[in-house]
């Protein structure tokens, strides 16, 4: 099984040179730490920044400079600031190449639910609906199952939808899977020590397993 850091490390391998990337709150934020240094990429924060840098040292904290998770941040060289309408113009217009975000559920046709649990949680969708409706590539970071053991990779989402037919890839604590254009999850890799059988048993949606499934390797 992968821990959160390993999920982030695995997703970082999906990043390509020259990409502009939006990272959601939680595990996706950690991905920034593991992007290979030889790649030139730029991180977008939907509250109005291109070029997110590391967290500031104590003496450099600026309350007027935060990311979308409201964390204090810094800017890298070559950053640009803009307003929220311009930020989502950038997102909606397809200029951000890759969105990495968390999910509560993903369906086998790529629908995602991550913003609402009726009667329980009403935090709102924030920028997630805009991001998943717009980016050309969307990767989900999440646990394969809920705390009570239910699969989160479903035939259909049971929770209110954030976006339809948008998720391209999923990295969970157990596996890496593509969402096929024609529907269905395709198993690509398994976590160290996790068997294909376990993944099959914990995936409710249609799962395609072809040939030998390699085990992920981490440094």
């Amino acid at each position: 099984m992968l821990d959160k850091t390993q999920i982030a490390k695995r997703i970082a391998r999906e990043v390509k040179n020259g990409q502009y990337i939006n990272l959601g709150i939680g595990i996706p934020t950690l991905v920034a730490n593991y992007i290979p240094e030889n790649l030139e990429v730029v991180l977008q924060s939907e509250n109005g920044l291109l070029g997110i840098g590391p967290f500031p040292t104590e003496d450099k904290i600026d309350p007027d400079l935060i990311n979308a998770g409201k964390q204090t941040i810094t800017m890298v060289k070559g950053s640009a600031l803009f307003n929220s309408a311009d930020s989502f113009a950038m997102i909606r217009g397809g200029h951000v190449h890759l969105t990495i975000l968390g999910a509560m559920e993903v369906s086998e046709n790529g629908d995602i639910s991550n913003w609402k649990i009726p009667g329980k949680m009403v935090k709102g969708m924030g920028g997630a609906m805009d991001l998943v409706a717009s980016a050309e590539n969307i990767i989900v970071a999440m646990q394969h199952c809920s705390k009570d053991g239910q699969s989160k990779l479903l035939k259909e989402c049971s929770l209110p939808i954030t976006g339809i037919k948008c998720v391209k890839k999923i990295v969970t604590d157990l596996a890496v899977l593509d969402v096929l254009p024609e529907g269905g999850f395709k198993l690509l890799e398994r976590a160290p020590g996790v068997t294909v059988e376990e993944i099959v048993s914990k995936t409710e949606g249609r799962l395609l397993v072809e040939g030998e499934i390699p085990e992920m390797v981490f440094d």
Partner: protein
Amino acid sequence: MITKTVTNAAEAVKDVVSDSVLMFGGFGLCGIPENCIQALLQKDLTGLTCISNNAGVDDFGIGLMLKKRMVKKMISSYVGENAEFERQLLSGELEVDLIPQGTLAERIRAGGAGIPAFFTPAGVGTEVADGKEIREFDGKIYLMEKGLRADFAFVKAWKGDTAGNLIFKGTARNFNPMMATAGKITIAEVEELVPAGQLDPNHIHTPGIYVQRIFQGVDYEKRIEQRTVSKG
């Protein structure tokens, strides 16, 4: 140049009445009009509709207006940091209209720009699409969304001049520039107010045409929600 200066927040908000529609700049607690919110709290207002990306926290920002039960309805994209908010919502005391963040930003821009409606892909296939017109362009499905305006827009800038021109700092810009365009009356509070002519016209984020009143604010707390540091 047309002079927009007023002396302080109390004077700036003096004609805000109950049941008004208000916009508040800010993302989380970053770039919120702290002085105007404090001045509104001093007034006996109820039935307000507040348009703001977030709803503050329990003891700061718009959260204080919720606690005082001044707000009838919130129009926001994310309200996750506010227990009182969640309580009022679940109990039905507060109406809430949750809108995708980019749609909210664009609706406000459209309202200020005289665009009554536009199409966006955000929310297609979700409950956000309920009751909205759906249309296909070039093989992709979109929703029709409408422009938003407000009786009063409250914005917070870094620097401003007496002509109402505004410059924001860092990510404290966020929703402030669009909201400035969408208020019938736009009230700007700034950290530093300078005479017209001292700001470079090429650096101005919000032209003074959008601002009806401006004042230099005091005692900014600029509370940080997630203080994250690295070892350096």
